[in-house]
């Protein structure tokens, strides 16, 4: 837990965690006040002071009182990474967990760049995977320097000293020194070139369900998200972007809006209009009073029908070969043939915190307050928009009210900079939910086709083709090589089954008009769905039970086999169920985590679907914080089930047709099934966990519906009209 005493910088340690100072209770107004008149709550986090501290690397600061501040290279968007990263550092450092506080890292790829991407990015479920070794080494190196400092003072062999909970001990002489007392002398030590890392059996923090560091302030209103930025003289803006993708502003009549009380300024950009007001309400009213004419541009006639025709046509072409084993042509020439295609819709992110950014453009600098998954990219894109050198852009990161990939894009910050450039005060730009839903970068539509053959009850040949957007080609161009988007085929090229003739292709097909981006679960979402749905249909064709059928093809994947067997057992697989209730299985190898999930679902006569129970068995290697692993799978399953039951963004006349939670629905508590997550004990390196649960929901539910009704759905979201009694897909 966090302590709340002042540290040596005079900053409350709670403020260190949240990056801001609580405001609510500072208010005591008794006089009528004009406009925004809150106490200044400048959520600027304290600077990373290294003077007078042990600062052995970019991640660890120990002051002379022993307070330990850990600097987080990855961002906290609910996935628990601030706690898990702190646990990894604290483990090898042998820190006192009760003295640990965390700071958001500033933008700096050199110090805080994710080792996998070379960029300060949080995504692809790889915070722990990428930082596991580097942060353990950072912690162990710091520990070694503290030991050297103590051993030097005592004139003993460092090897005769031990460490625990922020203290170095020399057992032979009974002497002890706290890390605080050693901070300054440790700072003068030469870091060892190589340090041993702990054996897993000696872990004291890793593997324990420690309480999250960020929870206390999230239950009392003190946690500060980007949208909570409050600055002196700040105004609030909201925006209307051209409803048609690619359209621009033609003409704005602001006569009425200019007269609205509280409206300060109307800013017209190329593709959007912003109204700056004393508060969000004035900005919203002002925006509603504008008469905007749009130049709708070339996409004004694009609709879902044409977009899908485009993808279906593209998916008929040959793709770039992502993987080929055996002889696919020969394999497909013999045996029982199976062909199918599976389609996935556009999806919006809809994080609960609508996109927003607060920006103050001063003559010589630009300062930004937001919650982003891409600190350095936000900084460089803001610099371009502000016309300033990168080093003149300060980015203050915050807790994210959900990221899910939406905050892997800098567009909201760039727009906010352009708006803030027009005024000399700070502006908080907040998108309404409607604007957030209609101006997202959407999870791409995919069409995945399968051609397979069965020989002796097993898959003998498997030709699988992914057709869809190459998000990586836009987002990280160097990663797009030889026509293959490695994200789009993720969990397809490494499908867990032993198949002698195995072939995967990719066709890049960018949808007309609609911008696409990463969405929680990324590439594996489409592939785990198509692979696992096809496996169920193949099992039925082979006359086998779906679990039995998979089991026979897992000889070379013992971790996959183990979770499959365990999930089947825990979910009472095979035990009889009443009519129109079924169990569906999903096995996946995504993000270096093996998960088997059983969904039990009921389909009523009208075709409405109720999810009754979900059992997931998870082998993610070493679970740094097993309770966080459970929580991420629970939440990921809900995220995936939401998509399966409701998720689809459709396009008409170049516009998104959905706008808010009434027509872009979310699963709610009254529809939430019992969820049981079992975390396997493992000594393998940690896998990714933030997204894997999302992958499991749709295929396991679809296969449960298949078992309950015999209807093989091949498109998401679930079409109830196909499930009513008497209907056939």
């Amino acid at each position, binding site marked *: 837990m966090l302590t709340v005493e002042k540290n040596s910088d005079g900053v409350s340690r709670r403020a260190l965690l949240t990056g801001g100072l609580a405001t609510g209770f500072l208010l005591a107004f008794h006089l009528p006040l004009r406009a925004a008149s809150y106490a200044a709550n400048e959520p600027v986090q304290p600077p990373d002071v290294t003077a007078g501290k042990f600062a052995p690397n970019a991640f660890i600061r120990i002051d002379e009182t022993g307070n330990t501040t850990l600097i987080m290279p990855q961002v906290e968007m609910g996935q628990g990474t601030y706690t898990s990263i702190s646990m990894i550092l604290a483990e090898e450092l042998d820190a006192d967990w009760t003295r640990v506080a965390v700071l958001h890292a500033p933008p700096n790829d050199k110090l805080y760049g994710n080792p996998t991407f070379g960029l300060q990015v949080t995504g692809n479920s790889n915070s722990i995977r990428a930082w596991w070794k580097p942060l353990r080494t950072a912690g162990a190196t710091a520990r070694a320097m503290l030991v050297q400092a103590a051993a030097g003072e005592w004139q003993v062999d460092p090897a005769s000293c031990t460490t625990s909970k922020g203290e170095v001990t020399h057992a032979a002489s009974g002497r002890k020194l706290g890390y605080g007392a050693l901070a300054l002398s440790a700072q003068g030590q030469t870091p060892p070139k190589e340090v041993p890392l702990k054996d897993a059996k000696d872990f004291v923090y890793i593997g324990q369900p420690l309480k999250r560091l960020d929870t206390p302030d999230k239950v009392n209103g003190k946690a500060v998200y980007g949208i909570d930025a409050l600055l002196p003289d700040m105004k609030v803006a909201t925006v209307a972007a051209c409803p048609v993708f690619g359209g621009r502003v033609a003409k704005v009549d602001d006569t009425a809006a200019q007269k609205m009380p509280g409206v300060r300024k109307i800013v017209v950009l190329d593709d959007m209009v912003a109204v700056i007001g004393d508060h969000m309400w004035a900005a919203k009213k002002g925006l509603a009073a504008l008469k905007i004419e749009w130049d709708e541009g070339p996409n004004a006639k694009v609709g879902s029908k044409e977009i899908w025709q485009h993808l279906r046509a593209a998916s008929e072409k040959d793709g770039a070969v992502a993987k080929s084993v055996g002889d696919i042509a020969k394999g497909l020439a013999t045996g029982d043939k199976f062909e199918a295609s599976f389609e996935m819709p556009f999806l919006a992110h809809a994080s609960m915190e*609508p996109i927003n950014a607060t920006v103050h453009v001063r003559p010589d600098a630009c300062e930004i307050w937001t919650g982003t998954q891409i600190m350095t990219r936000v900084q460089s894109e803001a610099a371009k928009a502000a016309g300033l050198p990168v080093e003149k852009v300060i980015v203050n990161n915050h807790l*994210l009210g*959900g990221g899910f990939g939406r905050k892997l894009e800098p567009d909201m910050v760039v727009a906010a900079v352009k708006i803030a450039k027009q005024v000399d005060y700070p502006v908080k730009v907040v998108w309404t939910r409607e604007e957030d839903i209609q101006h997202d970068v959407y999870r791409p539509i995919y069409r995945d086709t399968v051609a397979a053959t069965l020989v002796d009850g097993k898959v003998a040949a498997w030709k699988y083709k992914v057709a869809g957007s190459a998000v990586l080609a836009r987002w990280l161009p160097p990663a797009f090589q030889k026509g293959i988007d490695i994200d789009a085929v993720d969990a397809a090229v490494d499908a867990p089954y032993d198949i002698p003739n195995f072939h995967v292709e990719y066709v890049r097909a960018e949808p007309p008009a609609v911008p696409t981006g990463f969405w929680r679960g990324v590439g594996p979402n489409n592939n785990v769905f198509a692979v696992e749905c096809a496996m169920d249909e193949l099992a039925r064709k082979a006359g086998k039970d779906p679990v039995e059928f998979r089991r026979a093809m897992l000889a070379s994947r013992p971790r996959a086999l183990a979770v499959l067997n365990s999930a089947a057992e825990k979910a009472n697989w095979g035990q009889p169920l009443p009519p129109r209730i079924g169990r569906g299985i999903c096995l996946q190898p995504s993000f270096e985590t093996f998960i088997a999930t059983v969904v039990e679902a009921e389909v009523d006569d009208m075709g409405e679907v109720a999810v009754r129970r979900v059992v997931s068995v998870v082998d993610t290697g070493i679970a740094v914080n097993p309770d966080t692993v459970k929580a991420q799978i629970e939440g990921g399953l809900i995220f995936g089930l939401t998509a399966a039951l409701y998720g689809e963004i459709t396009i008409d006349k170049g516009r998104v047709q959905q706008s808010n939670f009434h027509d872009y629905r979310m699963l709610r508590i009254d529809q939430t099934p019992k969820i049981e997550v079992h975390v396997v004990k493992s000594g393998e390196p940690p896998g990714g966990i933030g997204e894997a649960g999302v992958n499991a929901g749709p295929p396991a539910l679809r296969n449960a519906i298949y078992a309950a009704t015999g209807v093989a759905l091949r498109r998401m979201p679930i079409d109830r009209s196909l499930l009513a009694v008497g209907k056939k897909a």
Partner: protein
Amino acid sequence: MATTLTINGERKSFDAPPEMPLLWVLRDILGMTGTKFGCGIAQCGACTVHIDGKAVRSCVLPVSAVRDRQVTTIEAVGNSPAGAKVQKAWLDLEVVQCGYCQSGQIMAAAALLAATPNPDDSDIDAAMAGNICRCGTYVRIRDAIKHAASGRQS
């Protein structure tokens, strides 16, 4: 227009148009940012506050409609026995992920427990179905409400 409200037991006076939703008064005028904006149309519950102890969506409540009733927000819900129990249960069961919706979830749960000290599953469904959690913490929310009601807190 000068308005005076009682918020968390304190009298607060400010200038706001009468139709301005309470949410924006709290956040943008009074700087009380614990109450969150999620949808603006009473579909998600992130903005839930108590008016005389009842859970209300502040994003659609005109400030003029509050009149002399007591407003309680997440910043002070812990002063009530039900609110304190709910906050404690949320910590005990580690309910929270991103946390953005949790102010609203806690306000809804505290109002439920104050009115119905031992809610069953259907009471929980009825009271909590208006609050969306995009991280999907619903299983723990249900367990935490039961945990708070049971009085078996650590």
